[in-house]
């Protein structure tokens, strides 16, 4: 850790100058803009534009430099296990060793609850402070897992399949036997979403305020939790699904189906954006890697394989191996560690190796393993912000009541419209492609080309640019020989209706009237080509060109 810090210190700027720059204007010689490597816009003649561009460039370069400095402020170092010699293996370390080795405070973070009532599924809030669990027999509990404060505990007395918090711990949704129900923090039932029938899995998109559910009927439904409206429902046509994950970075919903397909969905497309056959059997679990901006996806299927996919290139998994103990549960942590729960243990693999493409189906090197004597393992979740440093403006594990309320309002104001969900989230703020409707012309004498905007084109050119101009009609000469061969009925059938319309007449006249140097040149060229073709045809027919006589010199041309 020492080496990179030294390097950083080298790159940081004159500290004395920086300390006073907030309060005063520095002389030009002391300003650290000089070593920012800002491009000089000397080639731009417009002074105002030049100043604006260089100001923008300086600003962004300075922001970048400050960003480098800000990394030094992250005081809390990431947690990890490092073997001290070649014989040590991280996966040999078990939980009690970690508990002893990590110190008292960190050791207290490890909890274990033994509950009856079927396999449980769990979910953390975005800030990682609160945990919700639901048992398949209908036991629901939400609590602050650090302090052990119980918010609510319900016995719903019916099958429950999934649970998720909404924007924060003040609301949570439970996928129950027939419908999705929304409860508040104290466990009071607020809403029954009857549009979501027999739900199996749920995901909440926090920046769009959307609750997405998939049910046994195979309908993916989006419900806007800020307005209460059912936004869209997509028919997947792939039957029931029991695997669902969201990509945190583009809010795309990944679904795994019974036939082994994985599909990617956005609310504004009625069909999947991506569909791939991932497994030979039902897909049991999906997770998307948040540490690389949603670049990798892990899937596990009933065929007892775990596969890691590159979301930029779907041609085959980059890594696959078989998990012992059948169908697995996969989950990716915020720092890029992949947990695979299968059989009786949870295996954790770390980041660089699981993303390296490899031929064959060998298991990646194991980082950590934890056997659990209870089966089946149906849900595995990483607690957010136990490892990376958090940002209080996004999600704060230590926020108080007032901060939570304020954040709720701010998040509502910043709610992103659902039709902005796409596979590539970077399209916001990028440049629009130039319109294809404008026409670039070169004048005949080879002068500079000028671009005529669509609005300034003459009518015929506009129609042509739109693809609406009827170019067929003008070539009446070419069409004529064919017409002679047609019978009467055919003629009647193929009669060109609407040819004499006033607009068509106008266009035809327009085309003939305008005499432009380019059109003259083109006509001459076409004429020449036609003559050549005729000559060639004659030659092919056997007519030899006449011998030149003495009088030919008087013929023109």
């Amino acid at each position, binding site marked *: 850790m020492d080496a990179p810090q030294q390097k950083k210190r080298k790159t940081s700027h004159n500290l004395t100058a920086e300390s006073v720059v907030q309060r005063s204007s520095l002389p030009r010689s002391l300003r650290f803009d000089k070593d920012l490597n800002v491009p000089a816009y000397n080639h731009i003649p417009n002074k105002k534009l030049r100043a604006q561009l260089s100001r923008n460039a300086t600003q962004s370069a300075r922001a970048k430099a400050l960003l480098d400095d800000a990394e030094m402020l992250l*005081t809390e170092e990431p947690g990890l296990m490092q073997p001290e010699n070649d014989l040590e293996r991280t996966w040999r370390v078990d939980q009690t060793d970690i508990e002893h080795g990590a110190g008292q405070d960190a050791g207290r973070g490890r909890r274990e609850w033994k509950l009856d009532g079927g396999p449980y599924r769990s979910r953390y809030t975005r800030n990682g402070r609160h945990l919700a669990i639901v048992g398949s027999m209908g036991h629901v509990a939400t609590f602050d897992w650090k302090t052990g404060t119980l918010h609510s505990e319900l016995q719903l007395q019916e099958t429950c399949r999934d649970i998720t918090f909404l924007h924060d711990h003040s609301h949570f949704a439970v996928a129950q036997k027939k419908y999705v129900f929304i409860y508040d923090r104290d466990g009071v039932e607020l809403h029954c979403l009857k549009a979501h029938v027999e739900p199996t899995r749920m995901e909440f998109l926090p920046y769009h305020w959307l609750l997405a559910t998939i049910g046994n009927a195979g309908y993916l439904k989006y419900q806007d939790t800020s307005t209460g409206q059912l936004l869209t429902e997509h028919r997947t046509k792939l039957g029931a699904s029991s695997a669902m994950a969201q990509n945190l970075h583009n809010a795309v919903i990944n679904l795994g189906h019974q036939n082994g397909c994985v599909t990617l969905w956005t609310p504004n497309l009625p069909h999947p954006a991506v569909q791939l056959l991932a497994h030979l059997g039902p897909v049991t679990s999906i997770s998307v890697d948040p540490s690389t901006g949603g670049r990798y996806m892990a899937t596990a299927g009933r065929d007892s394989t775990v596969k890691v996919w590159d979301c930029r290139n779907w041609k085959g998994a980059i890594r696959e191996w078989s998990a012992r103990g059948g169908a697995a549960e996969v989950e990716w942590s915020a720092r890029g560690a992949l947990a695979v729960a299968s059989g009786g243990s949870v295996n954790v693999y770390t980041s660089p190796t699981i993303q390296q493409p490899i031929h064959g189906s060998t298991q990646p090197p194991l980082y950590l393993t934890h056997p659990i004597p209870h089966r089946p393992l149906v849900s595995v979740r990483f607690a957010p912000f136990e490892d990376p440093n958090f940002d209080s403006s996004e999600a704060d594990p230590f926020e108080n009541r007032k901060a939570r309320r304020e954040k709720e309002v701010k998040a509502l104001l*910043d709610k992103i419209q659902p039709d902005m969900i796409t596979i590539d989230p970077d399209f916001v703020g990028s440049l629009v492609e130039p319109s294809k409707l404008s026409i670039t012309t070169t004048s005949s004498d080879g002068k500079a080309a000028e671009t005529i905007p669509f609005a300034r084109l003459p009518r015929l050119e506009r129609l042509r640019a739109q693809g609406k101009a009827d170019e067929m009609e003008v070539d009446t000469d070419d069409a004529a020989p064919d017409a002679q061969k047609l019978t009467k009925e055919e003629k009647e059938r193929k009669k060109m209706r609407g040819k004499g319309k006033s607009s068509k007449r106008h266009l035809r006249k327009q085309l003939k009237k305008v005499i432009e140097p380019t059109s003259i040149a083109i006509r001459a060229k076409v004429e020449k080509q036609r003559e050549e073709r005729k000559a060639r045809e004659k030659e092919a027919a056997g007519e030899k060109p006449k011998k030149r006589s003495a009088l030919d010199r008087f013929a023109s041309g």
Partner: protein
Amino acid sequence: MKIKVLQHDLVAHLPQRPGDPTPMSRNLNPLMHPFAKARERTRALNAAKMDRMFSKPFIDSLEGHVDAVEVMAKQPGSLTTVASGSWDGGVIVHHLARRSQLLHIPQAHAGKVSGVCFSRQGRLFSCGVDRTVKSWNPDDSQTENPQPVAVFSGKSAFNSIDHHNSDPTFATASNLVQIWDETKSLPVSNLTFPTSTETINSVRFNLSETSVLASIGSDRTFTLYDIRTGKAERRVVMQMSSNSLSWSPTFPTTVLLASEDHNLYTFDIRRFDAPTQIYKGHVAAVMSCDWAPTGLEFVSGGWDRTVRIWKEGRGHSPEVYHTKRMHRVSSTLFTSDARFVLSGSDDGNVRIWKANASERLGIVTTRERAAIEYRDSLKQRWKSDGEVGRVIRSRHVPRPVHQAAKLKRTMLEAQRVKEERRRKHTRAGESKPKAERKKLVVVEQA
């Protein structure tokens, strides 16, 4: 085995004592901020909408004139004192902050009051079509029927008056420009261009080169004079006549003309062949214009019953103000603090507007100020986004103005198409397109 575990230190993340703010911690890793751009765009859109929502520019209207308000003038060195003259011959000195009248002269002139101005000493001068210039003391508000301090009579009706920046002299415009001394009853000198037979509409002293004088006339001319040489220096004949002129307070060579052809023009007086910028937006003749004291903005009022505020150098999409009851705007004024705009119209009212429509008057707290500045920079950054830009640009105008603008657009487009066709069917190189800026000036005379 080395085992490290990240621990969030409670001391660092919780307030030290009850009542302390909770410490913020930042992680600038972009992966920690998904949808940062999309969220910022949403914020920008909200900021643009809020700006339109809060845009309530009208503050008050000052009554008192019986007939249309023809001219207004602000007192130099004062933020609140403004004089207005009307077609009924009355002159009122308003106090803007108190919205009261400091001085009301019901019959200052017989007929229309065609010009008012203040001297540096605070003396008020008014001229009228009754061929007199009268000077008043704005402080004698107690008297029921205030009398002029001095009366200067001329030979023909006066159209405009302006006072010298420092000297006790003033200039009037009738069929010629006359320079008067405050202490003498006859004009000191007559300035006229040799071949001129025009009526001078308006005359203004340059604000920093104080002996330079500019006038506009009814025969479509703009003339420069120097009172030291006592001669007209240069003259420009334009396509259409101008209604008002204003010197820039920050660029001494820049002059602004409000033209009859619906446009405003800024000229650099060192180059008269073309205006430096054309300001297009009004849909009828522009009747008046005035620079903000910062020189970055100016206001114009037009025959189309709108007041428009322009950014210097930006020739399109000005801020538009209008009300149901406001008639033709014949005089406009920027106040000396550049925060307010005044308009005097044919309905006899002087109206006060904010220069920045959505500005909040009154005390603004630091947090609020920070939020406003953040919103402004968001708007600036996202203005080229389609939806945000549309909200920022859209202005509601009365139906007649909207229709007139539509008609004007159609006519100009038709004209352009016709010209283009003509050019296409003439011999190549015979007729060349003329730049819009080169079309204005007909001839330049020295």
